[in-house]
């Protein structure tokens, strides 16, 4: 039993990293908005889904007019990523303007309602557009990276079995890492980033320091949603098939990852996402073996949630969260 676990470990790690990278970047979107507004942006999952659809639409148009065959895959990818990020960024900004800004002084839970309303709206709008264009809302995009790579893990340790993965895995990981490093740089080394951190820490004092709070919040939403949209493109490339309801499930999982890492903390979200992805993959691959058939792969969500609950019992602020000392 344990030999099997170790044998499949490299494959599980690779698959877990793919999934984890997706969770991590979406979790960053959640955490950024929470840090600034103390608001759980439930519509973020739908922004991600919209990004996936926009990316697939662009890819389909490209393959329709023949550009796909002409240009190298990397160039296509970069064009699609940039276009989708900008569009979803504006979508995110629009959502903030319409649904969150008027409610800034209202009880916090009301924004939950508008977020849910926007979720439903976006899901159905995308679904109608997809149905009108393609007759079915489950859309499969063209593949642009089709190489399969084999990793000779057995040469590292004899107990490991060989692992194989598609080249899309490398694409997803590399782009995700670039995005995360870019964001880290943006938040910690630029003026806008400093403004964002200031507003997150204390909104009124930041306003006193001549920071335009509304603009900063808009920029935060733009950046968070752009990242979410880009992740959507990565998701579409990795799995090929998308439908309007992926945002909901992934949104919940990414939110869990953000909480696991400590909500409001960007590095925490990255680690939380990766960790959650790997835990899920590990559970799916090994639960049956480990528990002798009592619990199967369908319990992997339960496994992930239990880990979350255990972490929160012992460290209620999340893994990287700072214990906020409340003063009265």
């Amino acid at each position: 039993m344990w030999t099997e676990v170790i044998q499949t470990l490299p494959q599980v790690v690779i698959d877990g990293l793919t999934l984890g990278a997706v969770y991590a970047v979406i979790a960053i979107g959640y955490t950024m908005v929470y840090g600034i507004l103390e608001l759980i942006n439930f519509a973020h999952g739908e922004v991600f889904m919209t990004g996936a659809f926009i990316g697939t639409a662009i890819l389909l148009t490209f393959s329709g007019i023949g550009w796909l065959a002409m240009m190298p895959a990397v160039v296509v990818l970069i064009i699609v990523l940039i276009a989708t990020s900008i569009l979803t960024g504006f979508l995110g900004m629009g959502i903030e303007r319409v649904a969150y800004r008027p409610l800034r002084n209202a009880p916090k839970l009301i924004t939950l309602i508008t977020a849910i309303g926007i979720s439903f709206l976006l899901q159905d709008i995308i679904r109608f557009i997809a149905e009108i264009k393609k007759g079915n809302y489950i859309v499969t995009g063209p593949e642009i990276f089709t190489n399969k790579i084999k990793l000779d893990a057995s040469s590292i340790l004899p107990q490991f079995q060989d692992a194989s993965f598609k080249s899309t895995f490398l694409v997803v990981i590399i782009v995700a890492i670039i995005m995360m490093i870019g964001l880290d740089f943006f938040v910690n080394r630029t003026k806008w980033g400093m403004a964002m951190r200031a507003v997150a820490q204390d909104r009124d004092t930041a306003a006193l320091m001549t920071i335009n709070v509304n603009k900063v919040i808009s920029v935060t939403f733009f950046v968070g949603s752009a990242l979410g949209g880009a992740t959507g493109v990565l998701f579409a490339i990795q799995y090929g098939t998308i439908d309007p309801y992926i945002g909901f499930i992934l949104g919940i999982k990414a939110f869990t990852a953000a909480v696991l890492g400590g909500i409001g903390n960007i590095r925490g979200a990255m680690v939380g996402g990766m960790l959650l992805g790997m835990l899920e993959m590990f559970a799916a691959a090994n639960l049956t073996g480990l528990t002798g058939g009592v619990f199967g792969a369908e319990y992997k969500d339960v496994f992930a949630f239990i880990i979350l609950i255990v972490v929160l019992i012992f460290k209620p602020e999340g893994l990287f969260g700072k214990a906020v000392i409340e003063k009265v």
Partner: protein
Amino acid sequence: MKKFITILLTNRTAQLVLFLVYVVVTTASLYLAEKSVVAFLLLLLSILILYFLKIKTPLKWVIGLLILGVLLPVSASQGPSYQSYMEVATLVGIYVAMALGLNIVVGLAGLLDLGFVAFFAVGAYTYGIFATGQAANFMPFGTYPLSGESFWVFLLIGCFVAALFGILLGIPVLRVKGDYLAIVTLGFGEIIRIVFNNMDKPVNITNGSMGLASIAPPRIFGIDLMFPNQFYYVVLVMVILVIYAVRTLEHSKIGRSWKAVRENEIAAQAMGVPLVKTKLTAFAIGASFSGMMGVVFAAKQTFVDPTSFTLLESTTILVMVVLGGMGSLPGVILGAAVVTILNLQVLTEISNWMNQLNINGVLSIPDALSPVKMQRFIFGALLIVFALYRSKGLIPAKNRKYDPEQLKQTKGKNSKFLFLSKEKLKAYEGRENL
């Protein structure tokens, strides 16, 4: 005209008379018009108007009960849509009770719970397992399925089992605050659903995803309750009990402790409010309402499976509470009624009506945009509109106003306002005035 309106606003009898005329008109139109959903909704609206009138509260209750208990069923009973109205009304009742339960947890105690449907599932499965042959799989004694007469006992059992689960949920999350609590409760809701979906091996407890079918309907005095109009009365009585319970709790010591914990935990602790007990009580009581209604739901549908207890359900109930006005009893009732009626009746009727127009050639709508599919879309749009324009909720919570003079007059023992402990009562007895 202005004078008429001012008379209307101040004069009690004028309001009462106008209201009675309204009730008579809508009841008559419901009686005559048979299939008119508008009349049905207007009659329900009369309850809302009743709430805003300036007449004495006991009178309001009597009129309200008269309308709900007698006028509505009798006038609707003439048409073919009778059972469908009763079905909607029964579901409204079930959701009102659940929303009131969640209101205690979220609205009064300030604990954001996103997994509330888990307790509903627990109640439903409790009755379901014992009222079908399922229990024979693991219970060493007794003959199953239990007859419908056990339904009434199971209402209480469901209450307790759900309360137990509520406490079990509450214990690990005592230290967790705010939005972290949200995700943990969400996790619990999902865990319960997945576990129920999978508890068919090694011991078949819940029959997994196949669900439990042919649940025994409740039986009273030898009659099986099979039709929605019978369930309507059961649910009506239960909702009245729940409303009474919530009102008493809200204005009692425990209710004030909840509100204190909601506002500021540390200040509450400093004032001597036992944090653990207060939070656990909130979870337990909220869960028990849900469990009770779960039993009713299982008996009504005669079939339970895990697909009725998704995250979307929890979110819908939370929407009802927040939309109605957190912590406000009439608001939550209104929110639950509005959301349920929208989802189950109004939107379906509107899409049917538009479909009929489509068939008759008045409008032509491309198939992809057919109104039958637009229900979730319209619901989402309405949520946004409601939230933007009534951001404090439909009927925001109001604190009860106490008259300070009246409080001073009351002696300790006869006080309606203070639930005092024995030591304090003795202390007050010695004094002449408070």
